[in-house]
């Protein structure tokens, strides 16, 4: 139980460091001391504006987004009993993408686009739930297949919209689909969702541990299976929706982060959940810092970098002998 006790404090420190690095880099060259100065003793000026109005909100949005995706990944991997499940496997992101793209095509503003994404995501959640939850019990195969089939359907509709879309709107839509934090606004709601989902499931971490043994065994040990599975489904859905509203569909974080942590030996959910949130948050924050500075002033979609970093890291961890 006390193995790798250093891991959580280390991840917390790394998360804080990632936020600091995000504040440090950008088109305006700032020294480490200037950033600290602006944080500790704000004085009106350009530096303060850059730190407090531009970089800090973006860094906080990135961190919340990554934390939410990794948390949703942990939950769905337990629910579907599949280490390769990710927050998008149930079609939530596809529904959100479809909703927001329809709003973009209709020429709506940012608020309506977000509402469109929310409506699409909630529609997908309700549809998947209605199709796979029968008579008080989950059929997990049907759940997974329903999600995959719906995702394929959404992808087809999205491709159709993209071919019909006017040239001017195409780049914005593509960025959204690849995951992009440059339009992320205030992230307060995402932090609230992250704290609520994380807190709730850390309290019931024992149920997740037992559920990881399989549904039959979990019931034999006294897990209220239907209730716990429903809670996991809606908790993961809520986290995914909040993340998708912030940054579109940023790939790889939700699948890779929990998997990587398990491979280094964290598996009890009381520690896996916070560890995943910290690692996912720090990872996306760093990737987004890179995405907005690598080819500055050109901003790149962060989802490209999460995949480019994530693929070799995961391949390395998988190839290690246990």
């Amino acid at each position, binding site marked *: *139980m006390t*193995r790798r006790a250093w891991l959580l404090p280390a991840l917390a420190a790394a998360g804080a460091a990632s936020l600091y690095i995000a504040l440090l880099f950008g088109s305006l060259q700032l020294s480490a001391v200037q950033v600290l100065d602006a944080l500790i003793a704000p004085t009106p000026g350009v530096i303060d504006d850059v730190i407090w109005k531009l970089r800090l909100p973006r860094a906080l949005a990135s961190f919340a987004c990554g934390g939410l995706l990794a948390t949703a990944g942990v939950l769905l991997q337990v629910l579907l*009993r599949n280490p390769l499940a990710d927050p998008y496997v149930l079609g939530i992101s596809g529904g959100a993408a479809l909703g927001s793209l329809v709003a973009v095509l209709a020429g709506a503003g940012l608020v309506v686009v977000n509402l469109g994404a929310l409506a699409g995501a909630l529609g997908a959640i309700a549809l998947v739930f209605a199709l796979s939850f029968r008579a008080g019990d989950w059929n997990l195969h049907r759940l997974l297949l329903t999600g995959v089939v719906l995702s394929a359907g959404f992808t087809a509709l999205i491709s159709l919209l993209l071919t019909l879309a006017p040239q001017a709107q195409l780049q914005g839509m593509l960025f959204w689909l690849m995951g992009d934090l440059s339009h992320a606004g205030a992230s307060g709601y995402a932090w609230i969702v992250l704290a609520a989902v994380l807190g709730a499931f850390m*309290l*019931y971490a*024992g*149920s997740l*541990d*037992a559920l*990881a*043994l*399989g549904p*039959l*065994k979990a*019931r*034999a*040990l*006294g*897990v*209220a*299976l239907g209730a716990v599975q429903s809670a996991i489904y809606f908790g993961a859905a809520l986290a995914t929706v909040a993340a998708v509203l912030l940054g579109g569909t940023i790939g790889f974080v939700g699948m890779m982060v929990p998997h990587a942590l*398990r491979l280094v030996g964290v*598996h*009890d959910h*009381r520690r896996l959940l916070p560890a995943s949130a910290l690692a996912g948050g720090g990872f996306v924050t760093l990737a987004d810092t890179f995405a907005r500075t690598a080819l500055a002033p050109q901003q790149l979609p962060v989802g490209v970098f999460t995949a480019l970093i994530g693929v070799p890291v995961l391949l390395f961890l998988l190839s290690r002998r*246990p």
Partner: protein
Amino acid sequence: MSLKAEQLTLAVGARTLVSRLDLALAPGELWAVLGCNGSGKTTLLHALAGLAPAAQGRIAIAGRAPADYARRELGRSLGILLQREDQEFWGTLAEYVMLGRYPHARGLFGWGADDEAAGARALDAFDLAPLAERAYGTLSGGERQRARLAQLWAQDPPLMLLDEPLQHLDLRHQLQALERVREAVRDAGKAALVVMHDLAFAGRFDRVLLLYGDGRHAAGTARELLEAGRLAGLYGCNVRAFGAGADAHFIPVV
């Protein structure tokens, strides 16, 4: 705590495996369930544990139907050793065994001192303390089987259903596992129902339930039911008996 089944009928598809079974498992009783492959032994255990519905009949645990229990309360009253666990467990053996304490957990944060003590006792009972920090996935088949037994011992329910507890175990640990079951029944007043195939140990049981797989069944003391002719009919092969009473054992002959 007692376990009662009344007029229990079990079916898989259109096939009736067990018809109108009356069974009463009282504290201090040790039952063996014998029968061919597919004769409904596992189905019976799952029905008694409330994991699968019976086609007909009533089950009462201390006088109440399993459905009337809160799941965790049921987990404290009745435990089942499953024959198969498909799921790969990521943690250590000690963490696996500790999950048996799930129905007892009071605090939301970690285990209490009595949970830790029960887990340590369970590890010791099956010689697993030296392996406690090993990753569960690296254990051998027999070691995993002992881990499953230890998890049930950590759960520590008064009613125990064990589905082939001796599978994969070497001779010494077969004997050890049976002794642990007998101790739990004799000294701690538990009741156990054990599905098994190994007739070498059949004489150590007080009572026997024979399932024929076509609806027929027979229940009674080991002394009256365990004899070569009846077992030959049960298994469909010739059986020869050696010894008598607690030393009785049976081997199949061509």
